[in-house]
């Protein structure tokens, strides 16, 4: 697997994690837990954004891996 492909896979993984944290934040009953899930979700979102830029960069550098 090329680097571009594994970074993309990691990005997809992050998206899944973000969605699950969001659903946990909505489903939890305790305020403290809700807050922890929410803030971590935001952290994950920022990591996801970084990865997204990197994927675009990789695609620009190595157009053969675009897709």
């Amino acid at each position, binding site marked *: 697997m090329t680097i571009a492909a594994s*970074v993309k896979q990691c990005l997809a993984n992050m998206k899944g*994690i973000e969605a699950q944290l969001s659903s946990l934040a909505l489903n939890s*009953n305790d305020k403290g*837990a809700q807050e922890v899930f929410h803030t*971590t979700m935001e952290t994950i979102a920022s990591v996801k954004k*970084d990865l997204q830029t990197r994927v675009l960069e990789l695609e620009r550098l190595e157009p053969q891996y675009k897709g």
Partner: protein
Amino acid sequence: MPSWFDIIIRSFVFLALLFFMTKILGKKQISELSFFEYVSGITIGSIAGEAITGLEKNIFQGMTAIIIFSLATLFADILALKSKSFRDFIEGRGTVFIKDGKVLEENLKKEKYSIDELSALLRQKDIYRVADVEFAVLEPRGTLSALLKKENRPLTPKDLQMKVPIEKEPQTVIMDGNILDEALRSAGKSRGWLETELEKLQLTLDNVFIGQVDSYGELTVDIYDDKIQVPSPTQRPLLLASLKKAQADLEIFSLETEDEASKAMYMKNAKLLQETIDKLTPYLTS
């Protein structure tokens, strides 16, 4: 009127009377916490038994006595709430048997307890060595409460300085295949949510004997057919695992890339993810 018929009538009358009197006195009478309640409990029972079978006597005499005893207990309870000294007199005070790890022989003698009886009471609390006890007190009702020395107490998360998430009590939302709307509301969920969760487990409502929602909004069920295995919720442990995987991936990318800027970006985000994992671990395990 034949005597057996009289007994039937009296039995029902006193059953109802005793039931209502106990209702008025409340749970406190049933637990017989104080000396007064203990005495009145015994006496009311005896009066009722006497009045039911003592056919030569008037039924109203027994009823009057029961009502008087109940009202006296109620009155004593109310007074005890108002005045501390009255409370000490009526309900009695505990007697300290062990203090600072030492048995107080004087107090044992005062309550007429032998050391055998004290150790029997301690054994009922799974304590076999008197030396393990820091403090023990004989409650007014004759039960013993014991505090172990700090080093003999069970280990708690606090001792280990562990951070544990607050967990609310689980709500029972399904009972005998019926949805309990009130519990569902206090869990902050809707019927639609419950139906989706059941669908995820591939169950129908009338199959479920009991269903509970925990504070993470996870549904656990017990179904009538014990041969069918219901999967237990795995969302949170799986989430933790995929977080760990993503963190490891980022570290690998940072090692593999030759571009300095991306290396720094991967390193920064790997660190961020590690912090996130540390923060979430208490909530995602257990």
